[in-house]
């Protein structure tokens, strides 16, 4: 679409533009809706980023709020002096990195495996079943986790005990909790995440495989030399987007999984902002945290993009 747009911006004659628009205006009409959505819900709210630098009041217009102390940086200083924020920052980074490390390759590997299956119907069934968890909310997944993993009453722990082992504190001991958290994250998302890779794989020219077969390449050779390079651009784009989100991440998952015994490793920025900002009414403080989070996110995004272009990939722009 952006390519089209560029075309419009450089019309050779004014008339051309008119003719062009006459022919394609319907497309632009359709494009307008998502643009309006983006503008209203993503750009307009940015006006209120200034709350981070001001002493917020619920009744005054944001433009008239007085500047916070320390040239407006009072809340940033406060946030970084706060233990909970530092924990939340650390946990966000740790959990997201672990997610990236274990969770990012999972759908790729799964897509590769799925692609090698010859029974089409079986493949379809497997695919459908694996992406179903994506539609479950985290609250539901947590209650499933409770039923399965609670010591003494959870199904898996009862199984372990019946087999003569000792029950494992999957949800109530910090290290185990991290493992469960990451595992459930992968479980929920790998099927769904593989769809885009499968689509990319199906776009690979079958002649390549045929040529490779003629050259005597086996399955693994084909995977390594054709399939993987074929989906490399997709992998890179997704990796960049994931890196941009390294300080972000959803709210529902950590919020649903948290409990009082593991808060030290489970409190992330999103839940911290919810608790302190929305429940504790410290809007300026948490806007500052949110702004920091976004700035770091943009930094990672730019860096990953730059790196991927350096390495000869396309990047996202």
């Amino acid at each position, binding site marked *: 679409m952006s390519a089209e747009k560029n075309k419009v911006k450089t019309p050779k004659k004014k008339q051309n533009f008119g003719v062009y628009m006459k022919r394609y205006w319907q497309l632009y009409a359709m494009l307008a809706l998502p643009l309006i959505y983006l503008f209203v819900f993503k750009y307009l709210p940015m006006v209120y980023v200034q709350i981070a630098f001001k002493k917020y009041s619920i*009744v005054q217009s944001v433009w008239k709020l007085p500047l916070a102390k320390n040239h407006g940086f009072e809340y940033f200083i406060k946030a970084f002096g706060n233990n909970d924020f530092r924990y939340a920052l650390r946990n966000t980074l740790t959990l997201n990195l672990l997610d990236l490390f274990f969770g990012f390759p999972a759908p790729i590997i799964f897509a590769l495996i799925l692609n090698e299956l010859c029974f089409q119907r079986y493949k379809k069934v497997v695919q459908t079943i694996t992406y179903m968890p994506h539609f479950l909310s985290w609250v539901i997944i947590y209650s499933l986790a409770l039923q399965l993993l609670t010591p003494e009453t959870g199904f898996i722990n009862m199984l372990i005990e019946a087999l003569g082992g000792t029950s494992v504190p999957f949800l109530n001991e910090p290290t185990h909790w991290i493992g469960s958290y990451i595992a459930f994250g992968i479980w929920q998302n790998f099927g769904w995440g593989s769809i885009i890779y499968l689509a990319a794989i199906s776009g690979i020219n079958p002649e390549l495989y045929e040529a490779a077969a003629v050259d005597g390449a086996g399955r693994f050779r084909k995977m390594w030399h054709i399939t993987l390079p074929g989906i490399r651009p997709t992998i890179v784009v997704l990796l960049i987007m994931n890196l941009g989100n390294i300080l972000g991440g959803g709210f529902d998952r950590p919020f649903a999984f948290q409990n009082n*015994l593991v808060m030290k490793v489970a409190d992330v920025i999103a839940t911290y902002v919810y608790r302190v900002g929305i429940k*504790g009414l410290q809007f300026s403080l948490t806007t500052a945290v949110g702004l920091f989070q976004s700035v770091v996110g943009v930094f990672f995004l730019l860096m990953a993009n730059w790196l991927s272009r350096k390495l000869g990939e396309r990047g996202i722009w």
Partner: protein
Amino acid sequence: MKKRILSMLLAGSMVISLAACGGSGSTTTAPAAETPAAETPAAETPAAEPKAEEPKAEEPAAAEEPAAEATGELTDGKFAETRKITVEVYDRGNDGGSDPENNMYTEFIKKGMLEQHNVEVTFKKVPRWTEVDDINNLLASGQAPDICVTYSYPTILTYADMGGVIDLAPLLDQYKSELPNLWAWLGDENIYWDKDPKTGTVWAVEGRRFEQQRIVTFVRQDWLDKLGLQAPTTTQEFEDMLVAFRDNADTLLGADAKKMVPFSISKDVGWRASNIITSFMDPAISDKDYYINGFDDRMVTEPQTKEAVRLLNKWYNDGLMRKNFSLAPDDTEEDDMIKAGYVGAFQHNWDMPFRNGDDSYNANLARNVGPEAKFVAIDPFTNSDGKHAKWLYSTAGDRKSFFPITNQEPLASLLYLDFISQPDVIKYLQIGDEGVTHDVLDSGAIQIKAAEGEAIQNSGKNIDMTITCNGAYYGDANLAALSLSYGYSGIDPELVDKASKIAMTDGLTPKNVNVGSIEAEAGVGDTLSAKRDQAYDQAVEASAADFDKVWDAAIADYLSSGGQAIMDERAAKWAEYFGDATMLP
């Protein structure tokens, strides 16, 4: 052709959404342009903050103008022209409840307010369990009800600090003669409960609590009988009883023996073990120490609390308590366990097993286990003086009513508070119509019965409607005392009576230490309650060897997250107002 129509539609919707966007754009800017008008009062209120004298002179002056007008406006308590106000009401989302905004009781209020004061009342429901968040949104969007209610005073203070709340002090004085019922019912104590000692501001009026009973321990009478035990009267006997429950699970639960929970608890340990924790507190605690440690109503920083938790930790590791209680996201699972009959004892609100009519704990037990199964109140926990000390609710310090700055009808709103403080009105709201929601017994006592449809009270005794009164009052203290035991449909009055008596035994009434607002308390309430629960939960579930380490670390975390700052500021304020004294004058 079809394509054309479709694209026309799309384009049309785009134009509309553009227009709508422009509209919303102009509304977002409009408040900015309009606010100066609405802001003038807001601009005044911050002036009340600095402790200087001058704003004081300014404030009443500003308030006097409408007052002079308004008193002229009222003839026999009625406005010449109909005024309109909106009032917050909690929506508890009860299964099969009545519409919180339109039911028999709201109609009664609407009719009465129109007749007595020519004020049209509209109710606005706010979900009970997210009230603070919701009121917050409503305030921010300028749509808050004219009369807001909350249990959380720090929340009101935060709004007031932003200039979002009307100072009631001048209004209450000015219109005193128009508000006889309000002043008679609440008295100076409740009305001035939150008066700032320096600036004289009153951001909220405290409702009056008519029942002070708070937390009681309950035990399964039928289990005691089956094992031939007496109700425990000391902490040790209580423990022995739990051990007996645990060891006789087969007798008590048969095939379900594995589900036995001798003592149940939730992740809110500070509440659900309150009687135990209070029994460890130094009976000679000074007002000063209590105040300094008093920000947390679960006593987490009280020095002796650690030993109470150590006892709980021992019970937990001995298999006497509900396992992994901290993993449950809410209380539904525990409710089900109690109702199914797996739980031997617990502590909770003094009337917990009697609440909710047909769905009460005791009604469920009778259905699921047998007619003899029921929870009864006991009083086992003794402190070092041999007393059964328990904290009560104070008579004030309950729900707080406040008027947001968007309230254009402060007088009409005050008249509303006056209206619902009339004894007759409280009585009707609490007990409804005879034959429908209550019967009158021969003794004259009121027996509450289960109502249907419009007449269903969404909260016990309609406390959500009677925002200036919490607890059975029935318009007459004697009648209330006589009827207390009959307040729960389907429940043996003796059980209620016993629980109520035990709840009051050796009760400690909290005192109001009014030293103005403590700055360190702003905005940290939720963080600290979360930390407090973490401290309790982690320590109770720790292994015995780790107990000290876990508790000390959690408390250190609590203190460094703002707990210590609050205690320090409270100590400084105490010194400022009371000097070296350790007790309140």
